[in-house]
């Protein structure tokens, strides 16, 4: 029974790893090897020069689009944690006459996935003149009702004794939040932060809509453009894909604990 279990898991694991193998194989092989009639398991001589070709090719703005993706993902992660964390704390802990009204307005947006409203959002963002602009890529994605709601739920369960001790020491709401609550909630911030980073890095529809000039492309838009183009260099495209996954593999290996926690938090309470 145990052996059957391990056999099933091993077969599944191999199947799951095949696409990663294909990205590397195709990226490092020559065009002839990829299109050869018989399957070559691994390129006979690894073509490291593919890297040099990829980064020097003016038709593939890989470096530029990677930098764009990185800037967008970092700004969205930091911005979301900052804005939604503050708002979540205010909603959880500061008694105020209209707090419930604001909370209802936040919760109401949970029913409307951002992807479905991309047309209306595009209308607003384009009339602000933010098409093909960093602001248009970053800012509309910062105001996640979902993240704020998760923060509120988390802060509701934060130990009150810690906050009261801070209050006795003369700290106001602001001081309590930054000196006591945030330092004691690092794990939660890390969990939501990793999820925000991965989501931002991999998002496609919004950048496709808003980044119309080549200079504003994120790496996903760049890859997609060459994927749907007529003439493409297959091995270069796969190498670009490998390069685009690399930052996330680093995140996965380094922060898996937080990632798993983030998935559990965002999945179930959603």
């Amino acid at each position, binding site marked *: 029974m145990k052996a059957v279990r391990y056999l099933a898991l091993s077969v599944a694991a191999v199947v799951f790893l095949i696409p990663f193998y294909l990205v590397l194989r195709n990226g490092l092989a020559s065009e002839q090897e990829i*299109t050869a009639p018989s399957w070559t398991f691994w390129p006979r001589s690894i073509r490291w020069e593919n890297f040099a070709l990829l980064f020097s090719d003016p038709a593939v703005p890989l470096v530029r689009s990677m930098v764009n993706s990185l800037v967008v993902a970092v700004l969205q992660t930091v911005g979301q944690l900052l804005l939604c964390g503050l708002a979540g704390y205010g909603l959880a802990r500061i008694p105020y006459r209209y707090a419930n009204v604001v909370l209802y307005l936040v919760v109401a947006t949970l029913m409307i*996935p951002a992807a479905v409203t991309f*047309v209306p959002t595009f*209308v607003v963002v384009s009339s602000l003149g933010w098409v093909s602009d960093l602001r248009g890529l970053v800012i509309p994605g910062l105001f996640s009702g979902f993240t704020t709601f998760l923060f509120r739920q988390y802060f509701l369960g934060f130990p009150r004794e810690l906050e009261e001790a801070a209050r006795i020491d003369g700290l106001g709401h602001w001081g309590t939040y930054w000196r006591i609550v945030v330092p004691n909630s690092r794990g939660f911030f890390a969990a939501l932060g990793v999820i925000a980073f991965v989501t931002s890095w*991999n998002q496609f529809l919004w950048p496709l809509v808003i980044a119309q000039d080549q200079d504003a492309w994120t790496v996903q838009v760049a890859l*997609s453009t060459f994927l749907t183009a007529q003439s493409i260099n297959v091995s270069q495209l796969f190498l670009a894909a490998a390069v685009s996954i690399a930052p996330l593999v680093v995140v*996965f290996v380094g922060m898996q604990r937080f*990632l798993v926690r983030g998935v559990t938090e965002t999945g179930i309470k959603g």
Partner: protein
Amino acid sequence: MRNGRAFWLFVGPFAIGLLVFVYVPIVWSLLLSFFDARNTVTPTSFVGLRNYADMLTDKPFLSSLGTFSVFAAFIVPLTFVLALALALLVNQISFMQAFFRSVFFLPTACSYVVASLVWKLSIFNGVRFGLANTVLAWFGAEPIAWTVSTSPPWYWLVLVTLRLWLQLGFYMILFIAGLQRIPHHLYEAAWIDGASRGWQTLRHITLPQLQTTSVAVVLLLLVAAYQAFDEFYNVLGTDRGYPPFARPPLIYLYYTALGSGGQDFGHGSAGAVILTLLIAGVTLLQGRVITR
């Protein structure tokens, strides 16, 4: 009064953004949906409900809703069963548990664009040297033109396996979290009562205890399938290739509102409103079921 200031200090920046980037677009688009708004976002010609009537009698739009249903009918049960199976298997072993969990979770690091690239150009590229056709050739079968084959519609196999690979790990993690919340004494009690370790405990303890997780997973899957865009766009290609293929609602909206044939925000907005109402219905149902 002091509380009011503190409250807005914390909530204000977020609330302003929510207003400008969520509520203003929704209201604006509600307005646009009653106007003839081709290539303009400040239209003047009021058409009443005509955009809605057009959309609800528009064959491609209705068929895009049908496409969503077909897609959901495959992807939701398949992901559910396979993710649960993986979670049960991973949860039962001790040696190399972390390794297997990581492997199944790793595809979450890939975007739909990268997965589309692998599926379209390497596994299912339709020529003899593609992986799927290479494997078929080992068994003496003829190559299949996967992504351009409409009868039989092999492209569905491409789209469904792609999404399975990308999302199984995510839902497996949710199921594992659910499994670990089941109190162990329930199993011990069942074993004392003579229940077998396999099917009986699964059916009478594990599955009932996983009810909350299961409902959440099904509804998350439904909403995610509804929003399918990336892989349809990248695997099936441009709007020129579309008529013979199925297209999900967001793809249709994308080409209506922002496609090469001109920007039609009136019809696009009406479509967005219809979709929003449908999804809001599903989510309300989710809230109802989970909080019950």
